[in-house]
């Protein structure tokens, strides 16, 4: 008899101990990976799986309301649920060539390219640019990089300016072999575009010839 009570007591204690953390953390939620999970201890149930979703079902739980769903989160009233959003980042660079034409000392030549980013990275994204060298000739003559914040007609300067909500700076800056940030955002973005305007101005001592440069854009999301 005593032994039977001991078994019953042990089982009850086990149920309490096992159940305690579940009750205590029944509303636990995780962020960063876009998962909201809540659990309860009821009569039964299980998970219904698909490649993108896991629906948790139970028996005996109370139906207390309707679900609230957005593109990133799903709040389930009365029932536990899980919504997994696949991390994603895409970006485009267009066009892939910019011809500034024939440079003259009395005007600043410009040409544009647009970088467009879509990402659900919770900590945002950064797009950088790095060049293979100066805007230069095959012989090594080059248009000097802008250093004073503005590409000025007649001054012999080359650089980029930016427009767009996510632009990294508002003045004119050089494009060199050192990585430079051109766009960023601290959160998720959809089709965020930054226009990069390449600008070249020459003095009369900029050597005659054909000039070229390759600018490489790299976009990185932080999830």
């Amino acid at each position, binding site marked *: 008899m005593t*032994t039977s009570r*001991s*078994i019953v007591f*042990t*089982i009850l204690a*086990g149920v309490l*101990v*096992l159940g305690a*953390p*579940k009750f205590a953390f029944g509303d636990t939620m995780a962020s*960063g*990976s876009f998962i909201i999970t809540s659990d309860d201890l009821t009569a039964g149930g299980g998970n219904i799986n698909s490649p993108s979703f896991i629906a948790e079902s139970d028996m005996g739980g109370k139906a207390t309301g309707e679900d609230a769903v957005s593109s990133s989160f799903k709040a389930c009233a009365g029932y536990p649920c899980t919504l997994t959003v*696949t*991390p*994603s*980042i*895409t*970006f*485009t*660079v267009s*066009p*892939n*060539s*910019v*011809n*500034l*034409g*024939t*440079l*003259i000392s009395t005007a600043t030549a410009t*040409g544009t*390219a647009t970088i467009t980013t879509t*990402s659900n*990275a919770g*900590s945002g994204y950064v797009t950088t640019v790095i060049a293979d060298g100066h*805007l230069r000739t095959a*012989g090594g003559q080059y*248009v*000097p990089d802008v250093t004073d914040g503005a590409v000025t007609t007649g001054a*012999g300067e080359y650089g980029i300016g930016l427009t767009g909500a996510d632009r990294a700076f508002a003045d004119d800056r050089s494009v060199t072999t050192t990585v430079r940030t051109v766009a960023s955002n601290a959160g998720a973005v959809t089709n965020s575009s930054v226009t990069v305007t*390449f600008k070249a101005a020459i003095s*009369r*001592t*900029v*050597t*005659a*010839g*054909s*000039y*070229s*440069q390759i*600018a*490489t*854009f*790299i*976009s*990185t*999301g*932080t*999830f």
Partner: protein
Amino acid sequence: MNNERLIMNSKTKIFFAKILTIAVIAVSIFQFGLLPAMAATATGISDTMSRNKVGITAVTHSVSMTLPSGPFSGTLTLTYANFTAFAGTPTGTCAGGSVGSGTASSNIATVTLTTCGAGTLTITSFTGTNPAAAGSNTVTIAGAAGITGSFAVASVTDDQVGVSASVDPTITFDVGAQASATACATTFSVDGGTVALGTLSTTTVTSSDLSSVMHICSRLTTNAASGAVVTVKSLNGNLKSTSATSDVIASNTATPLATGTSGYGLCVGSAGGDTGMDATTPVGVLPTRISPFNNASCTSAAHNIGAVTQSAQSIWSVSAASQNAFARIYVKAGISGTVVAHADYADTLTFVATGTF
């Protein structure tokens, strides 16, 4: 017999009760997360790649993530969807521990963590070939270290912009006579003119910038990569009487042209302000005087001249592009007592600027 069965049943129940108690305690400990080998999700995960363009080979990766409280030990794998040809020896750093050199092959990079704690984990030194198609590519974190997570990297059709431009070759040149009181400068723009030497004398050397005799200014701008040269060519090769063409004052190189000596020639001024140019970006080059017109001393009082000929001779040059490069040129003449008197000694000097592009 019944007592023995009763004792056996009691012992069996006690035994199962102990087993159940141990199981309950073990499961409880696991529930409360007291065991170190527990799965944890990394946050702040990123991979800075050297290129995003599709199909590019040997693209470098630099992965960074934030680990929760650890410590974490064991393998960590990064599986890149759609990537191929991983290579290198991944390694990295972590807070409070170390990241051992791992492996990279196919689309998986693996490192081994040793007691990595909360903080930044970096993984570098591996390369791979980017996906063949543009889009978002999921990277999954797993491994025995118990760290999980996922992130994405982009692949794009083209991640570069080729910028091109051209600069046409240009050269401009001015040359002409200028009053002695006015120095040559970057703004000089008068072309042509006459340098009247006046009446020559055996008691003095006649020179530009003396007795109001004009000098010659020349100014050049070019973007020729190899610069430009200014040449001078004399019509007569001497000062010749127009009415008696056999009577000449021969041009000669003299350092200096002595008083009472017959001679005629040019030199490019040696004083500091006799040559110059605009300050530009890129920086241009100053004119260089050329022999025989480049004596160390060429002023209104120093009569070191070079002979002019009927063939073009280089008088000064610039070795690269220059804007408004200028040079002052002195014309000098003297006579001996045997020079036949005429009022019409003359010569015509033709200057030509030639760029080398």
